[in-house]
C-alpha cells in the first residue's frame, strides 16, 4: 500500500472535523473521497499534507511516518497537493509557475547567480505538453481562464514529480467540456505516468466515471469504502446523500 492513515483526528474546538479516519490508498488507482459539505474532506487533505497538524493518529507513506511533518517536507517526500483555487503564482507566467516547482525539486533554489529564465526549459515544457498548456506558456497566470488555471494548479504539483497527487475538487466550477478534459487528464496521468491520485469531488458523474475506488466521508468519519459499484449500493451512503439532497 502507498499511504495509510490510522485513527487520524483533527478537531477545531468541539468540532471533530476529522474523526478517527482509517484510510488506505493502494497504488495505481484513481481514488475519490466524497461526502456532503462539511464531511471533513478538505480538513483531511490539510492534515494529510501537514498544513494542519494532526491531533492524534498517524499518516504512513511508503512505510514512513509523515504525521506532523511540515508541508515543505511532505511535498518533497512525494505527497503533493494541488489546490481548489487561488494558489498559483499570479505574477508568473504559466511557464514560470511550473518551472518554480521543478527548480525546487531539483534543489536549484539556493542558486543566487544563474539566470532562472533559461533553466530546466525542457522539463517544464514536457509538463506543459501533458497539460495542453504549451500555447499559453508565456501568458501571465493572473490572466488565465478558469479551466486553464485549474490545469495549471495540477501542473505546479506535477513539477514536484509526486508519487501521490492530491487534488481538491479538480473540476469545481468547470464547464462540461472542461470537466471532461480534466477527467481525461487525470486518467492519462494515472495510466501513462503511473501516478497515484487521491481526489475529492462533488460531481458524482466524474466520481463514478473515473474513480476505481471510493471513500465516503460523513461528519468527519469514513462511512463507506470500496469499489464504485459497492459504494453506490451502500444503504448508509444512500441515506446520507438522499437525506441531503431530497
Amino acid at each position: 500500500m502507498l499511504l495509510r492513515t490510522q485513527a487520524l483526528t483533527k478537531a477545531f474546538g468541539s468540532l471533530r472535523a476529522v474523526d478517527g479516519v482509517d484510510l488506505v490508498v493502494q497504488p495505481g488507482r484513481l481514488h475519490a473521497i466524497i461526502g456532503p459539505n462539511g464531511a471533513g474532506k478538505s480538513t483531511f487533505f490539510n492534515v494529510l499534507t501537514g498544513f494542519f497538524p494532526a491531533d492524534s493518529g498517524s499518516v504512513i507513506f511508503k512505510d514512513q511516518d509523515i504525521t506532523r511533518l511540515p508541508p515543505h517536507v511532505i511535498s518533497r517526500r512525494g505527497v503533493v497537493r494541488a489546490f481548489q483555487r487561488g494558489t498559483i503564482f499570479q505574477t508568473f507566467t504559466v511557464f514560470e509557475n511550473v518551472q518554480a516547482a521543478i527548480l525546487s525539486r531539483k534543489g536549484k533554489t539556493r542558486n543566487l547567480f544563474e539566470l532562472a529564465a533559461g533553466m530546466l526549459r525542457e522539463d517544464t515544457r514536457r509538463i506543459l505538453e501533458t497539460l495542453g498548456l504549451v500555447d499559453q506558456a508565456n501568458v501571465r497566470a493572473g490572466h488565465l481562464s478558469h479551466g486553464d488555471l485549474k490545469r495549471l494548479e495540477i501542473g505546479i504539483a506535477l513539477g514536484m514529480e509526486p508519487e501521490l497527487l492530491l487534488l481538491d475538487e479538480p473540476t469545481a466550477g468547470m464547464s462540461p467540456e472542461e470537466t471532461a478534459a480534466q477527467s481525461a487528464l487525470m486518467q492519462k496521468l494515472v495510466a501513462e505516468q503511473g501516478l497515484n491520485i487521491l481526489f475529492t469531488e462533488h460531481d458524482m458523474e466524474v466520481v463514478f466515471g473515473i474513480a476505481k475506488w471510493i471513500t465516503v466521508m460523513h461528519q468527519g468519519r469514513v462511512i463507506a469504502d470500496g469499489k464504485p459499484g459497492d459504494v453506490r449500493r451502500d444503504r448508509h451512503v444512500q441515506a446520507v446523500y438522499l437525506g441531503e439532497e431530497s
Partner: protein
Amino acid sequence: MSGSRRSRWWLIALAVVALALPQFAEPIVVHTAIEILIMALFAMSFNLLFDGAGLLTFGHGCYYGVGAYTAALLMTEIGMPMFPAMFAAMVMGGLVALVFGYFCVRLTGVYFSILTLAFAQLMFSVFQQSYTLTGGDLGILDIQPPAFLMAVNNYYYFTLVVVGVSFWLLWRILHSPFGRTLHASRDSVVRTQFIGINVRRYRLAAFVIAGVFASLAGALFAPFNRAVAPFLVSWVKSSDPVLMTLLGGAATFWGPVVGAAVFTTLHEVAIGYTTYWLLLMGGILLVGVLFLPGGILGFLEDRFHGAAAARGTKMTEARGASSNASAD
C-alpha cells in the same frame, strides 16, 4: 527591465550621463549625485525584501546605520583603512540582520513590519545612549576617506562603481532561482510551502542580503559625510527607502533608483527655500500614491511601453490581493 531593447538604450544613456557628470556639473551637483547613488542602493536593498519577497520592513535604517557606524568606528578608533572597514561593515550588517531577522521572519504581515521597527528602535537607543562607544547623540566626527578619495569627483566615481556593481548583483539575485523562489513566496506563501520550500529560511536569507547591501550603503555614506549620528539609525531613516520605493515604483527594478533621485533632489532644492520641506514631500507622496499607484516608473512604463508593460500596475494589484490572502 525585461531586457527589452528600449530599456537597454535607456540604461546605456543613463550610464553615459552618470560617467560624464563630473565633467560638466558643478561640485554641488556631483555631491547630490553621490547622495542619490547611496540612497538608491539603500532603497534597492529595501525593495529586495518589499517587492522581492513581499515583506515590508519599517526598520531598514537599522542596517544602514550599523554599516555607517561600523565603518566610522573602525576608521576613527583603530585607523582601519576605508576598504576593509567597508567590508567589515557589510559583515556586521549581515550578522545583525541574521539575529534580528531570525525573529522577524517568524511573523508575517503587519506583525513582521512592527517587529522590524522595534529592533531598529532598540538599535537606535543603543547608538544614542552609549557615549563611550558611539559618541551618543553627538555621533562620530572626522571620518576621513583616503587621500585619493578626498576630491568629490573621485568619491563620486568610486561610489558609482560600488553602487553599479551592487545593482548588477541585486539584479542577478532577483533573476536567479533564489529570486524566483522569493517572488513565489510573495505571490503565495502557502503554495510555495507545497512545492517543498521552507519559506522562513528563504525570507531570512533575503533579510540578510538586504541587510548587507543596506550596510554597504551606510558604509559609503559615513566617509562621504565625514560624520555619523544616531539619526542614521532612526525610524525616519527607515522610512526613506519605503517612500523612495513607493514613489519610484516598487514593481520595477529601477523604481527605487528613480524614487531616490526624485526624493533626494527635491530635498536639496526645497530645503533652500523652506524648512517645511517634509510637508512638501508629504504632498508629493500623497499625489504619487493616489494618482500613480505603480510609482513614477510604473506610470511611465504603462504610458510608453504600452501593453507589454501593463505589468507594473498589474503586479502591484496582484501583490495587494495576495498579500491579503497570505497574511496567515
